[in-house]
């Protein structure tokens, strides 16, 4: 049975265990494995998405474990805390030892210890060779080393050290991690980081941030006004620069106006203001409403993004959710090389009304132009669920930007209705009659591409009457207003983190590249001869030291040879 331990003894053992190397290895590996979870599971998404993805059971399990905001859970933080305790214990126990070892250099080596050195070389010289001369040769060969001599029992010991302060590397590196963790803790405790969306021309002083699964708010001591937001493009069409012109308003006074771009934030009163995102800030849009009741009526609606516009007569309401001046989409078939094309401006709205299912529509301003430059008519993207993945393209057939086509469609429908039987001939006759109605009887005055127009009208006849909607709202004009998405952050712990980082890099350099090398020259006169030993020791970089040791003894061999003769 093991000996019973008293409580303080137990604490002491525990304290030592906490600072042990094996625990450090285990902690590092466990932390690594735990960190993987948060990279595989997307963090801080909407709760509804998680629920949909995992189902109620696993959602509940993951949520209870805090896996949706894993790096801020009590168990992850406590692991970091445990790492700090372990580091403190390790430093606490080892620093005094290391400091002492660095300060005092024990010179004499026992004969037994001498034999155990990994690097050892011996000479046997005749008696009468001057000890001083040998030692002087040793000193001459080791430039930049520190020496300490001692004599004991007739033996002469000379110890040389290089990189004596190597242990400071260990101390710095381990302390650095403590400092970084403390800096991180201060930052999370006394700092903030949140987002702010400021429409062009408006000002804002509140930031939002995620707090676990909730959104928190914080009021800044100043207002930020967005004067303008601009996007610059490369000649290839890719965005080059997002630039916001901001004015800081402190206590009603405009104190600072400046541009910010990504990678170049603004600094005011300890708060950094970053360009983070952008979006629509309530653009003015004009919609033309093509009524589908057979009258061919067109009315106009002027409204703004994020507003709801209601048609009093029919009770149809349009909620505008977004406007995009560019819509770059992949036009290639699945599996083919991608072919990106800008489809032009589009507005996104939800249409609700009596007798219809609500529907989300992305309506493009321009008709779709095929790869050969052929006009394929106006089109929409329609989603019945509102989910982005559910959008399906809906070609309307006719080009609504051309008012004649809308008229032609209605004339055609009228003449088709008048025909007794639906045959190909009657359709042709109906189309001709419709053309006469719209463009007159003089065929020379008909548009040149009227055949393509006929194809489009036929397509429209197939599509439009089957739509369950009272009207087709199409985008005709816009004046764009952006909002700029800013991130505001203050981190009082940041400089502490940089201090820790500097200590870390500095410490690692000392640790790896300035190893502590020790050499002893031991001279023992015995039986009328001089026994000379060169012993070496290093705490790192054995390969280099082996070479170095070899160098030193070859050189000393020469020197001793000269001294002897």
């Amino acid at each position, binding site marked *: 049975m093991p000996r019973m331990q008293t409580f303080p003894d137990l604490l002491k053992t525990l304290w030592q265990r906490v600072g042990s*190397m*094996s625990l*450090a*290895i285990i902690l*590092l*590996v466990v*932390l*690594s494995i735990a*960190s*993987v979870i*948060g*990279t*595989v599971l*997307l*963090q801080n998404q909407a709760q509804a998405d998680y629920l949909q993805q995992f189902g109620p059971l696993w959602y509940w399990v993951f949520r209870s474990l805090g896996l949706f905001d894993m*790096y801020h859970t009590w168990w992850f933080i406590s692991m970091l805390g445990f790492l700090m305790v372990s580091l403190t214990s390790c430093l606490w126990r080892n620093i005094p030892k290391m400091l002492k070892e660095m300060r005092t250099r024990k010179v004499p080596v026992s004969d037994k210890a001498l034999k155990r050195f990994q690097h050892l070389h011996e000479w046997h010289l005749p008696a009468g060779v001057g000890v001083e001369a040998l030692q002087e040769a040793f000193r001459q060969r080791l*430039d*930049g080393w520190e020496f300490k001599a001692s004599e004991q029992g007739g033996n002469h010991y000379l110890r040389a050290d290089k990189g004596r302060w190597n242990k400071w590397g260990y101390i710095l590196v381990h302390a650095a991690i403590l400092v970084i963790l403390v800096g*991180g803790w201060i930052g999370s405790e006394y700092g903030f*980081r949140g987002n702010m969306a400021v429409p062009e021309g408006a000002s804002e002083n509140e930031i939002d941030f995620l707090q676990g699964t909730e959104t928190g708010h914080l009021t800044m001591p100043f207002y930020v006004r967005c004067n303008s937001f601009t996007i610059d493009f*490369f*000649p*290839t069409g*890719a*965005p*080059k*620069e*997002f630039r916001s012109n901001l004015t800081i308003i402190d206590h009603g006074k405009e104190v600072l106006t400046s541009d910010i*771009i*990504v*990678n170049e*934030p603004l600094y005011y009163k300890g708060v*950094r203001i*970053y360009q*983070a995102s952008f979006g629509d800030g309530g653009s003015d849009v004009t919609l033309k409403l093509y009524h589908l009741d057979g009258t061919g009526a067109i009315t106009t609606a002027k409204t703004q993004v994020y507003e709801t516009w209601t048609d009093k007569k029919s009770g149809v309401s349009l909620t505008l959710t977004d406007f995009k001046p560019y819509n770059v989409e992949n036009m290639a078939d699945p599996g083919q*090389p*991608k072919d990106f094309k800008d489809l032009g401006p589009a507005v996104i709205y939800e249409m609700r009304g009596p007798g219809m299912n609500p529907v989300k529509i992305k309506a493009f301003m321009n008709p779709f132009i095929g790869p050969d430059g052929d006009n394929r008519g106006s089109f929409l993207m329609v989603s019945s669920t509102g989910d982005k993945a559910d959008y399906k393209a809906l070609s309307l057939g006719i080009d609504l930007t051309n008012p004649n086509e809308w008229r032609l469609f209605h004339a055609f429908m009228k003449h088709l209705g008048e025909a007794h039987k639906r045959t190909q001939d009657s359709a042709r006759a109906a189309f001709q009659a419709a053309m006469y109605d719209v463009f007159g009887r003089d065929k020379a005055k008909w548009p040149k591409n009227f055949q393509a127009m006929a194809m489009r009208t036929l397509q429209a006849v197939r599509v439009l009457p089957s739509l369950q909607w009272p009207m087709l709202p199409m985008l005709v004009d816009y004046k764009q207003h952006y909002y700029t998405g800013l*991130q*505001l*952050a203050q*981190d009082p712990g*940041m400089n502490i*983190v*940089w201090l820790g*980082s500097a200590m*870390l*890099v500095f410490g*690692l*350099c000392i640790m*790896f*590249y300035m190893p502590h090398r020790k050499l002893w020259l031991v001279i023992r006169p015995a039986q009328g001869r001089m026994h000379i030993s060169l012993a070496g020791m290093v705490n*790192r*970089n*054995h*390969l280099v030291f082996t*070479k170095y040791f*070899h*160098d030193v003894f070859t050189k000393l061999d020469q020197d001793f040879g000269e001294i002897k003769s």
Partner: protein
Amino acid sequence: MTATTAEDGFTATLYRGRWVFLRFAAYLGAMAGIAAMAKFGVGAYEENAFLYQILSMKGLIWGGTGALAGCGLAIVGSVMKPTLPDAKMARNFAPWLDGFLLMVILASVWALFEPAADQISYENQSNLFSGRVIMAMNVIFIFSAVSYIAYLFAPESFIGRIATWSAYAGIYLGGSALLLRWHESYLFDMEIGHAPVSNLYEVFILLCCITAAVYLALEKRYQAKAMGAFVMTLVSAAVFFDVWLASVGQGDIKPLVPALQSYWMKIHVPMNFVGYGSFAVACGAGMAYLFRHRLEAKGGTSKMLKIFPSLDQLDQLAYKAVAIGFPAFTLATILGAAWAAEAWGGYWSWDPKETWALIVWMIYGAYLHARVSHGWHGKALAWWAVAGFLVTVFCFLGVNMYLSGLHSYGRLS
């Protein structure tokens, strides 16, 4: 394994004493001068003209002044402390900087072979000369790997020399091709121009070159030629991946997204790849260790064992590579944090890439602890070096391919 000290003639003078010290000081001064130009010069740092800022009269004046100042300081320093020119740092670093200078010269020569201005188009980049230089690099690296493997089976010194020299050639081709690509990016449009460390294709070339360079540095110092078969096989794998990337159209020069338009990119990315490359070499040493261990276990007395470094030496070499990679990787991660603090509003966001960098860091940190503590022996650590590199591969490749986050611009599209 003995020291390579016997060199003679011109190169020896070039790499001895005060000459190497003076040169090293001049390089450092020139770099400080360029950095000062980016920070304080008139017009300061411009993302889309930086290469020509360096190569213009302005760069020459700033860099040249820096180099002269460096030399001056070096002379003053060596007068005050006569042993200063013997400092190992100058001797260790100067050859790398010499090599870099040679790459710049090579790239300038390649630039003469560029197609005429009216034949350069952004849409079809296949006629650019860098593509050919990169293809040559690919072939040479694979040839080098084959030679190193041949050397294992037929340890003739001339095969070994061919392997080493072709690895050197590959590095110079790859490095100069990257520099040339930097120049080419300006040929489409000055606005598009940017340093060639912005997508997977480019950084893989960088990775091949750095891995080979770290390996050759170890080979030169410790005659560990047998390890080359393993390291250069890893490099060849990277080469094949790069060829595949080019074949799916990922090799083109594309304009830089706003998030990457920063001088931090030029420091952070290469520094990271010094880390990754060193870890690859450590992995090669680990594989060599396991290979030799198996040979010995079979009781083999084959010829191969004679040219292999001993188990202890291989263990030390793996450690040596980690000792280069770990501080570099630490510094790179810190630089990344500094960039994040400047661009995203926080030095640490638990973004997948950041987290994986931390995981890699902790794994090699644990490796270093395991070495010091007693319970661990060579074989376990060799496995650790190999496994650590697999994690590293996931960190720089897998994260971009499979996980989303702030580094997703490195994604395959």
